[in-house]
């Protein structure tokens, strides 16, 4: 479904969506949001792009293979889990580092890394799922339905399919 309006709009929307997803993600530790919701938002941006421009174009934008994204996500989960272990604490113990930028302080910590892992996995997951389904050639569906129709008409037994929705 190529639509100039949709495509052009998407070009502009995707930026805002990704930005918002990062915003939601970063403030997640203090206000509603976090890795998962942020990831959903980011993934939505890319899948919207895929709907408008097709998956190949989106792959170019994304550069990374979604599965690889998942891989790195899991890796950062593990790392955030093992950081405290290296420091002699149990697995997944939160370790924090506070940076002060003239007045406003920013905190970095292993939970944040953990949340990054979540974010990556979510994006990877949704993107890979939607891409896989998107890239399925539609005509299979159609061809098969026609076949079944033909077969129906030939051997009168009704396979009971109908295309489209009730009108």
């Amino acid at each position, binding site marked *: 479904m190529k639509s*100039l309006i949709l495509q*052009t709009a998407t070009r502009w929307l995707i*930026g805002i969506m990704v930005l918002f997803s*990062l*915003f939601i993600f970063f403030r997640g530790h203090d206000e509603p949001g976090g890795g998962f919701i942020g990831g959903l938002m980011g993934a939505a941006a890319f899948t919207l792009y895929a709907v408008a421009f097709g998956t190949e174009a989106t792959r170019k934008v994304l550069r990374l293979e979604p599965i690889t994204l998942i891989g790195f996500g899991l890796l950062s989960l593990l790392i955030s889990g093992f950081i405290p272990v290296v420091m002699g604490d149990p697995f997944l113990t939160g370790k924090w580092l506070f*940076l002060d930028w003239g*007045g406003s302080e*920013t905190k970095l910590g292993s939970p944040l890394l953990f949340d990054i892992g979540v974010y990556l996995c979510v994006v990877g997951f949704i993107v890979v799922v939607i891409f896989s389904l998107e890239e399925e050639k539609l005509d299979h569906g159609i061809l098969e339905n026609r076949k079944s129709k033909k077969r129906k008409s030939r051997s009168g037994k009704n396979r009971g399919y109908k295309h489209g929705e009730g009108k």
Partner: protein
Amino acid sequence: MKIFLFNIILAMIWMAVTATFSFGNLLIGMIIGYFVLLVVGSTIDQSGYTRKVWKAAILIIFFLKELFVSSVRVAKDVLRPGFRMESGVVAIPLDVTSDFEIMLLANMISLTPGTLSLEVSEDRKELFIHAMYIDEGVDHVRESIKNGLEQYIMEVTR
């Protein structure tokens, strides 16, 4: 250059939404904005938005007024029993050419009096809209759009 501007804008938006105005936050905003552009930068085309900002302002005000007016009119018709308007799908010849312009025009048409964009022709010469009120005739609809919205948009974009 444009990219950099956009980057700063993004950083501003970032500060706005995070509602913390500090150097650190600006920096973070810049960085995040940079990443955003890294991802979506390729999608931003050459249409300049830095010029004629005030024209844009005018456009926006005009548009908001139109939106309000149109909504009121729709409200009237919706709440009044029976429909006595005439409607149909009308082709509008386009002078605007760039993707951005067409998109902007189409969207604004959709949001303003009794018109709704349906389709842009392959050759981007025509915009097909559904118009609720073509009681004064199809041409009147075309005129109002060409002299109205399209004009304002072109003033902003060129």
